């Protein structure tokens, strides 16, 4: 299946992916409306000592988050791990178990994670289409 891959070699650490992610999942009609909002993106640029790369859900084949979910809120559909916010009780077991730190609390009290922009209006990953240097790609692994 197609997954998001980060290419450290080309990542500039510009953080545009974080803003594109936050906008894609905000439901807002223009990015300008993010003004004054502290964004909480599902993708995050790790950086240290001049090295950058963007980390988002790996959509693991044997995901620890799904195994650990106590309510069945996390499920795999066609390889993509989705979150059902109706079922989530916010126990944060998934956050503790994700080895990549790619699940985080959402403003709504439950958790959020990358769903490859399949559940928002973008349809395909906004971080990938907005990356200026092809440092994030969406391709068959």
């Amino acid at each position: 299946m197609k997954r998001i891959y980060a290419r450290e070699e080309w990542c500039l650490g510009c953080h545009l992916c974080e803003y594109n992610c936050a906008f894609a999942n905000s439901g807002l009609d223009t990015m300008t409306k993010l003004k004054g909002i502290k964004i909480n993106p599902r993708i995050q640029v790790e950086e240290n000592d001049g090295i950058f790369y963007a980390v988002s859900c790996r959509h693991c084949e044997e995901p620890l988050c799904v195994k650990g979910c106590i309510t069945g809120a996390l499920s795999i559909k066609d390889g993509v791990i989705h979150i059902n916010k109706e079922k989530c009780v916010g126990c944060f077991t998934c956050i503790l178990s994700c080895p990549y730190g790619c699940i985080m609390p959402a403003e709504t009290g439950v958790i959020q994670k990358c769903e490859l922009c399949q559940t928002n209006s973008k349809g395909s990953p906004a971080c990938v289409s907005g990356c200026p240097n092809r440092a994030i790609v969406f391709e068959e692994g």
Partner: protein
Amino acid sequence: MGINYVYPDYEVIRNIDRCIACRVCERQCANEVHHYDKELGKMTADESKCVNCHRCVSLCPTRALKIVKTDHTFKPNANWTGETINEVYRQAGTGGVLLSSMGNPKNYPIYWDKILINASQVTNPPIDPLREPMETRTFLGKKPLDIKRNADGCFDTNLPPQLELSVPIMFSAMSLGSISYNAHKSLAVAAEKLGIFYNTGEGGLHEDFYQYGKNTIVQIASGRFGVHKGYLNTGAAFEIKMGQGAKPGIGGHLPGTKIVGDISRTRMIPEGADAISPAPHHDIYSIEDLRQLVFSLKEATDYKKPVIVKIAAVHNVAAIASGIARSGADIISIDGYRGGTGAAPTRIRDSVGIPIELALASVDERLRQEGIRGNVSIVVGGSIRNSADIVKAIALGADAVYIGTSALLALGCHLCRSCHDGKCNWGIATQRPDLVKRLNPEIGAERLVNLVHAWEHEIKEMLGGMGINSIEALKGNRLMLRGIGLNQKELEILGIKHAGE
């Protein structure tokens, strides 16, 4: 401040309603123009550092930025313009030579824009390139003057070495050092995909790029940086660089700060040492001397590769070209005064040399008159901006063109003309690793391939319109051109009629 103060040329206009303070502009500006002020909770800009490269503008996700030329003014004066006055201030303050980058930006005539192309009507039908074959392939090199037969009566098909181009376009010489590793790689990959050639410039050939050798022209300049047997044997052709359009008559100087790591190894000089290319080749003071170098290169490579001699377009270009055509060289490349550079003294760049259109027309005419046009192919560069310029150049007598600035634009260059600062925000004219990585050669090569394909389509359309189905049939076909707004002398030099004639 005080007497040395020069008001910044550009102003950064930020639409505060749109700015979301994502700080992309701050992270992307190597000139450190943008800054997030924590106390104010908003972005600020120091426009005195802005070079107007548009990196921030291009990456701003909310289109909150634009750069405008300042309207701060001296008392208007057609003779003493603000630019002229500021240059005097700068020189009075520093005592230094003014440096500039890229091509001559002054308001001289652009002859390409005063030449119009013909089209067929009624009596000689145009050709539709989408329906009928159209040949853009061309060969560069010495052409035999007559047909010879072998003892068995068959044609002698042994030609002097030729370069085969799928389209009459090559990427100009830009050295590794003046441009980045990723820029070089983009050019190399694109040249291979397109079936054309790129040129190493005078900085040698990085070991990673030997694999693109069959699409590489290796340059031998006055500094002889990076020239060795392996280098010569790897390239498809050699170019002896006698001059450069942006700075005819002077050499080059790549500062020691740029001679780091790979650049130092490729140039075969110590790290931190300035790379100084002398103004002349110290072993070439005559056509006879040039001939010796041409033949030493041929001898070293079994006469299998063509030799190009590159000169800047200067006043006596036709006579010089005539000498070169007799020196044994296979191809003459002429660089017009609008040709680009990574750094040149401003006065030289803006005041020395002549337009490529006039140089090309007079060289082609002179070589024809002397019956030696077949001795050499002619390649021209120095501001070929689009496919129409190429069609006009070929009709004026060129065999192919070199594109440098256009290629850099395809790679992201925004012509801020600050290459000499070494802080290119687009990852082209810089050696800073964090900036070099901004140019992903995958994207760069794709964009170069797109550009040349687009131009190829347009060239075919224009050829078809003229009722011509091959580049070869357009070469030197000046009847396909007419001048507009040119005086008698200009028309005479260009060898074309005025529109309406």
